[in-house]
C-alpha cells in the first residue's frame, strides 16, 4: 500500500505534471484533482502546485482560492490533511487563510528564475522530516510575486513557534521579510513555500540536484507509517 497524493489543476496551473512526476519518483501514487471537483477522491495528502492560476489576475491565488475543490480542501486541512503549497499554491494557501501573511510583487519588480540556496529551519513538519534542521539545500525558484509579508506580531509568532520552515540564504531573491521562503501552520500539516522542490528531483534535469525529493519522501513515510 502506498500513499495517494492529489495534485490540483486549476486553469493556469503549470507544474501539475511535474509535481505528479516528483510524487511518482518518491514512490507514492499521484492523483490528478480538477479544480471543479467537489471532493478530494479520498487522497491522503494534497499538493497545490505552481503556475499562474487564473493568470494571477486580480492577485496571485485570489481567484483560485474560490474554486469548488478548495471547500473540502480547507475543511480537511483544518482537520489535519497534509497540504503542500508550492509557489502559486503557497499564494493560494495564504489567500485561503490556511497560512498567515501574504505575497507581494518581488521588490526588484522582475520575474526571477534561479537556483536558490535555502536553510531548512523546521524538519518536523509533515513535509520536511527527511531533512535535518539547519540543513542547507538548493531549490529552483521562479516567481513574480514572491515577497512574503506579514505584520510584526505574526512574524514574531511564526518565529517563536518554529513555523518558519525555510529561509533564503545568500541572496533574498524577492525582498521577503526576515528572508522567509516557506512557513507551516500550527499543526505542521500545511506547508507553503515559494521555491519549487518538484524541479529538484532528478540529477540530470533542471538544477541538476535532488534536494527537493525529501519533501515527497517525508510525506510518503508519514502516510505509510501512520
Amino acid at each position, binding site marked *: 500500500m502506498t500513499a495517494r497524493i492529489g495534485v490540483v489543476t486549476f*486553469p*493556469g496551473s503549470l*507544474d501539475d505534471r511535474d509535481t505528479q512526476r516528483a510524487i511518482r519518483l518518491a514512490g507514492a501514487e499521484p492523483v490528478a484533482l480538477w479544480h471543479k471537483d467537489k471532493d478530494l477522491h479520498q487522497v491522503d495528502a494534497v499538493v497545490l502546485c505552481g*503556475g*499562474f492560476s487564473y*493568470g494571477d489576475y486580480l492577485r496571485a491565488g485570489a481567484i483560485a482560492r474560490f474554486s469548488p475543490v478548495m471547500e473540502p480542501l480547507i475543511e480537511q486541512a483544518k482537520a489535519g490533511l497534509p497540504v503542500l503549497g508550492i509557489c502559486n499554491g503557497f499564494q493560494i494557501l495564504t489567500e485561503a487563510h490556511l497560512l498567515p501573511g501574504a505575497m507581494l510583487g518581488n521588490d526588484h519588480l522582475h*520575474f526571477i*528564475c534561479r537556483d536558490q540556496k535555502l536553510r531548512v529551519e523546521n524538519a518536523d513538519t509533515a513535509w520536511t522530516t527527511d531533512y535535518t534542521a539547519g540543513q542547507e539545500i538548493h531549490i529552483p525558484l521562479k516567481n513574480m510575486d514572491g515577497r512574503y509579508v506579514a505584520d510584526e506580531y505574526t512574524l514574531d509568532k511564526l518565529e517563536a513557534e518554529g513555523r518558519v520552515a525555510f529561509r533564503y540564504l545568500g541572496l533574498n531573491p524577492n525582498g521577503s521579510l526576515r528572508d522567509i521562503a516557506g512557513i507551516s501552520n500550527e499543526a505542521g500539516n500545511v506547508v507553503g513555500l515559494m521555491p519549487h522542490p518538484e524541479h529538484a528531483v532528478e540529477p*540530470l*534535469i533542471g538544477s541538476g540536484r535532488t534536494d527537493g525529493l525529501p519533501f515527497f519522501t517525508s510525506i510518503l513515510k508519514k502516510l505509510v507509517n501512520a
Partner: protein
Amino acid sequence: MSRTPLDTVEHATATPDVELPWAELGLKKDEYERVVEILGRRPTGAELAMYSVMWSEHCSYKSSKVHLRQFGEKAPQSDAMLVGIGENAGVVDVGQGYAVTFKVESHNHPSYVEPYQGAATGVGGIVRDIIAMGARPVAVVDPLRFGAADHPDTKRVLPGVVAGIGGYGNCLGLPNIGGEVVFDACYQGNPLVNAGAIGVMRHEDIHLAKASGAGNKVILYGARTGGDGIGGASILASETFDDAKPSKRPAVQVGDPFQEKLLIECTLEAFAEKLVVGIQDLGAAGLSCATSELASNGSGGMRVTLDDVPLRDSTLSPEEILMSESQERMCAVVEPAKVDRFLEICDKWDVIATVIGEVTDGDRLEIYWHGGKIVDVDPRTVAHDGPVYERPYARPDWQDALQADDANKLPRPATGEELRDQVLKLVSSPNQASKKWITSQYDHFVQGNTVLAQPEDSGIIRIDEETGLGVAIATDGNGRYTKLDPYHGAQLALSEAYRNVATTGAKPLAVSDCLNFGSPEDPAVMWQFAEAIRGLADACQQLGTPVTGGNVSLYNQTGEAAIHPTPVVAVLGVIDDVARRTPVAFREEGQLLYLLGDTREEFGGSAWSQVIHDHLGGLPPKVDLERERLLAEILISASRDGMIDAAHDLSDGGLIQAVVESALLGDKGARLVVPDGLDAFTFLFSESAGRAVVAVPRSEELRFTDMCGARGLPVTRIGVVDGDTVDVQGEFALPLTELRTAHEETIPALFA
C-alpha cells in the same frame, strides 16, 4: 448601425464604379486590377480587406518567394522530414515514434512600437503555430537584437521586450532554453525580436491546416474578437463611424497568456480524442487568413456566417472582424457528430467556442453578414495566388570598399598587459557579457524536462522519460559577418548553430530560419537577401539539414539606413540519451583542454574589432562546411562515448571568450599555453569557424586524440583546468573573481 447599404456581392456587382480605398490598404494599382480581374467585378469592402491583407508582404512573401524557392529546390534528401515548408511549422522525425515541430518567427516592428505586448504576442503567435500542428509545445527560444546598449531608447525597448517574453512565456509554462541578445547601433529603431518554439507529438498526431469533408463544421474558439491589430481595415470602416465607436484602437495586439494556456490544454485534449479534421491558428490577418487557408488547402469550399463570431466590441464592421488580429484564437474543422464533444472540452477549460460555418462541396469561400453575402471568392486566389515580384537587386557599390577595409590590419596588443586589458574589455562588452540578468527573467525549469538551457551552447529538452530521448535547439546569426559577405555570413550563421547543437552532443537534423532584412525595394538590400538565401540553401544542402520553414521580415530600416542583413538560423538536433549531453562548464581540475580545428588570422567582423576598434570591415571567417560536419561528428562521438566532460564552441570573441565562460560557469580556472605556430593574440581572439574547445579527463586523452587523428581533425593541447585564475602562460593571469565582475555586471548596470 449607419452603414447603408451593406456592400454585398450583389451590391458590388450593381455598383461597379464605387471607388474603394485600395491604395490606403496597401495594394498597388496593378494588384487591385488583378483582384477585379479575378472576381470579374469590383471587390466588396470585405473582399478588398481580405485580399489586401493576404497579399501584403508579411502574408504573401511576394518579394521573397522567388528566392525562398531555393530551400525547396536544394533541399537535401532527409528521411527526417515529415512535413515541410508551407504548413504552420515543419515537422521532423526524431525517432522512437516521436515527431518534433519547430519554427522561428519575427515580431520586430510591434516590439519597437510597444515592447512588452509586441514581444509577448510574438511568443503567443509562434506557440499557436506549434499547437496547430498537433504538438504539445515544450520550449521557447528568443533571439533578440537591439540598438546600442547605452542608447537611451534601448533602455526603453529591452526591458519591455524581456518582460513581455517572460510575462507571456512564463505564464504558459514553457521553459525558455535558448536564444541570443546582440547589440548594434544598426538595430536602433529596428530591434529584432524573433521568437522560436518547439513542440513534440507522436507521428500519428500530426495535424494539418485544411478543411475537408463537406458538412464538417468550422469552429472558432478562444478569445473574443476585438478591435486590436486591425491596422488598415479601419479605413474601410471609417465610413461607418458613429459616436458609439471607439475612435482609436491599438495597432499592436494585446496578449492574454492565461487564455492561451487554456487554448493549449483544450486543443491538446481535443486532439487526444481525435476530434479535429483540420486546424489553423489565427495570427496575422486573423479570420481572413484562417478561413482562406483552411478552405484552399482542403477539398471543398467553405461557408461562414460572420454574425456568429463572438465579439469583444459589438460595433465592429465585417471588414474589421475579418482583419482583426485579436490574439489567442484558433479555428478547427470538426465532423458534425463530434461537435458536441469538442464544445464540451472547450467548456471544461472555460474557452468560448462557436460554430461559425461549414465546409461545402463547392470551391468558393462564401462569407455572410446580416443575411447578405459579402464575400464570394476562390480561396486559393486569396491565400496562394498573391503577386510575386522579381525585385531588382544589385551588389552595392560600397561592398568592395567595405571588404577592402581589412580588420587584420588593425593595431594589435603588443604586450601581456595589453592583452589582459583587451580580454577584460571584451568579456565585459555588452555583446560578450553575461546575459543572466535577462535570462533569469525567464522560467527554464517548468515542465521538468530541461537538461540544458542558456548560456549553454544549445538548449536540450528530454522528450521521453523512459529512454532519455531528447531534442536540442540553437539559434545563431551574425549581422556583422553577413554585412561583410551575405553569402558566407548566412552560411556562418548555419555553421554556428549546427556546431552549437553538436557541441552539446546532439545530432543536427533540420533548420528553421528567420530572415531579417531592410527594404526589398532597395536593390542593395535585395542583393543581400538573395545572396544570404543562396548561401543558406547551398549550406543546408551540403550539411544535409533541410529548411523546414521560417519567416521573412523585410522593411527593417529607418529612412535609407537598413539593418545589417541578419538571417537568424535555428538548428534542431536529436540526442538519443540526454544523460550523454556535454555542458559548457569546466567540471574537474586536472582535465586537459584541447582546441579542435584550425586557427587562422581572421578578425573581419570579429567581436575584437568591434569592441577595441569600433570597426567593421574586411572578410568574415572562412566557411568550411565539411570541417563543420567532421567537427560535429567528433563532438557527438566523444559525448556519446564519455570522452569529454565539457565543450564550448568558438565563435564571436574567439577562444578566450569561450574559456572564460566555461571557467566562470564551472567556477574552475584554466592554465593555457599558446600553441606553437600561433601568436598569443591570434590564439585568443581569432574567430576562425569550425572550432571548439573541450575538456578531456586524463584517462580518456589517448582515446580522444587517437579518434581525432584517425578522422583527420586537427587537435591541439592548449592547457589544463586548474586553479582560480585564467592564466595564459607568459602573457597574463586574470583571477576568476575579476573576470566574474567584468562579465556579469555590465548588463545589470545598463538595464537593472
